[in-house]
């Protein structure tokens, strides 16, 4: 049983490894290009990075169970220097991932945001 679980995880993990790209909702209805590099460890955790214009951001708290993945990214706001955390969760289907991005809102900033905190978008595998 354990062997089967590991085998299935490994098969799916092989599909996640690589560079994935898509377009995520941006400000004022625009779409922003987005790209990730995923690496899956034998234990089912995900490492890698979010490619950034200024610098790449490491994937944190990443895990892959079956076809479900979860991870977080922490950005530093360019102007305020404040840390902003995003939680990502999604499902792999072949060479596509339906991903949900959720901004972790601090209690005092909820009313200031113009954009929805939870957004869905698709990623497509670019290269393995």
């Amino acid at each position, binding site marked *: 049983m354990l062997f089967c679980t590991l085998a299935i995880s490994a098969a799916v993990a092989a599909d996640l490894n690589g*560079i994935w790209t898509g377009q995520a909702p941006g400000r004022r209805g625009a779409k922003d*290009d987005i790209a990730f590099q995923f690496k899956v460890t034998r234990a089912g955790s995900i490492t890698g990075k979010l*490619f950034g214009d200024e610098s790449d951001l490491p994937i944190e708290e990443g895990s892959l169970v079956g076809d479900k993945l979860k991870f977080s990214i922490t950005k*530093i706001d360019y102007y305020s220097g404040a840390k902003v955390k995003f939680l990502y969760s999604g499902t792999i289907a072949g060479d596509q991932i339906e991903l949900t991005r959720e901004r972790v809102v601090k209690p005092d900033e909820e009313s200031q945001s113009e954009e929805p905190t939870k957004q869905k978008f698709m990623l497509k595998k*670019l290269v393995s």
Partner: protein
Amino acid sequence: MRNREPLARACGSALFRTAFLLLFAAAAFASDQGEGSKYSLDQGTQFIKTYCAACHSGKSPAGNFRAAALFPQTSFHDNSETWSKVIFRVRNSEMPPKGMPAPSVDEREQFSNWAQSALHVEACADGIFPGPAPIRRLTRAQYGATIRDLLNLHVDAGSALPLDGAGGEGFDNAAETLFISPIHAEKYLDAAKLALDSAAKDPRSRARFLIAHPGPGVSRDTAARIILSEFLPRAFRRPLQSGELASYLQLFHAASKRGDSFDEAVLFALRAALMSPQFLFRSENPNPAPNMRPLDDYALASRLSYFLWDSMPDSLLMALADKGKLKDPEILTGQVARMLRNTKSFDFAQSFVEQWLRTRDLGKSIEPDTGLFPAWKDAELQGDIRYQPILFFREILASDLSVLNLLDSDFTIATRKLQKLYGLNVKQFKDSQPTRIDLPPNSNRGGLLGMSAVLAVSSHPQRTSPVLRGKWLLETILGTPPPPPPPNVPPLEEGAAAASQTVRERLALHRANPVCATCHARIDPMGFALENYDVMGKWRTEEAGKPIDAKGQLPDGTSFDGPAELKAVLLERKDVFLRNLTNKLLGYALGRGLTLQDSCTVDAIVEEVKRNDYRGDVLINAIVLSIPFRFQAGAVPDAKTTLSADNMKEDHTTPR
């Protein structure tokens, strides 16, 4: 088997390159009008016998050049460099010399157009070649943008560097003009110090490149090694070669030994990296093989990023290069689309458009007289005017629109102040941001010709100039510049005596001189059609108290009245415009002057764009997928393993 050497040598000649584009564009224009096909080898030979042979024959031919060498058809292959010089000098009235029987302007054009077409056919017979890829220094703008991206530092470190001159197709990124002087070395040292000192004080920038620090479990050496291992490949835009890391670590150790702090010692080593040829120059590993080969992925990433961003490749491009996938045409075109959507593509649009349209000096060495045009005093409006063509060009690329919108369009990019200057009332602007607006019918603001930047840069400070505007159109839009004016041409009369006359009336007197008339018959008519725009591009109906006469007639009898009809005439010659734009963009993308053999690539690109509704994104993709952009010439110029135009098409991925 024919020897390719004369052609290959000719393609490397600076004079040839300069002559080629001007002449081939003119030939294309003529061909569009059906002139080229009428001329025969016999007529060409007769022209040479009539106007050249008297001096260039006999025992001691002038300049040691025998005109008879050009008589056979094979001379286009065997004497291509000589042909290019002959065409250039005949077309520019340098030959025959003064005092000898001379052909008319029409005869000169027919001869040079015919000869240029024959040279082109000869050059393309053996397929498409990559052409030269000379090593080139980063331009001032590229240096600034590369430092910005390397250090995440929003300080223009390139601003103190010497200005770059224009070369190649008229752009400052042409390798042939990017030489390095002693003053450069001094300024690079200052710029590197400024950049790194500023970056070390900026927390965001520090976090980008000072990614390790000595501490518990991390020695100074280890921390320096981590920093340099991450920084150097980005700075050099490729993986490190053997020994490179060690040499920069040595600099760190030397600085440490003399007592520098960790930060100081690391910055010392990084400063050396920013002074190194690997950072300051774009070079590609030479191809020792006899035949052409695809560029390696890192070189391709650099070509792509310095074309579309004017800066270094980002980490995604480098990751794709690491995996050896960037050369895959499908991935390459996907990256082109992404890069054009990225805000960094504004730098490309600005650099290309301002140099192509010559609007870069607007507000500097060229500007309307604020005494006569006080609106020019408004700095915000000046900015709006300068940015309009750049944003318009970018919109065409980003929205997959036809490049023919540059000739005429039903939309433009406007701001509140531009809308007012243009007498439009299309949109209620909430802020001062430029926005795409749909133009009402008969607005006369569609395309480049309705834009203030273009109209101002082709005017004198005090008055409009149909001559400057006509010349600007011939050169910039059609790529068919008129010959240079003869010496001692009297200027138009200015001042009080001329105030009661329109510019058209003053030019009529000028054209009464038969020496001036022939060329001005080509130049002025298009400029007349724009006379409803004043120096700043504001619409007017009168000049010197008289109604504006915006009628023009080209030497071939084509007539028009006003900008709308002129634009319709230009759209009839859309393929001449497309070829010129392709020449310009390809020259900009390759960062060098185009050669005769590049004209074969231009042919293929033009056909691809025509098949795809003249779309701007297709044009960019076709350039990126072209042989000269993706391939590297072999060490043997006459190697037979080359790609034909048909092969190149197969290798194209039809862009989105």
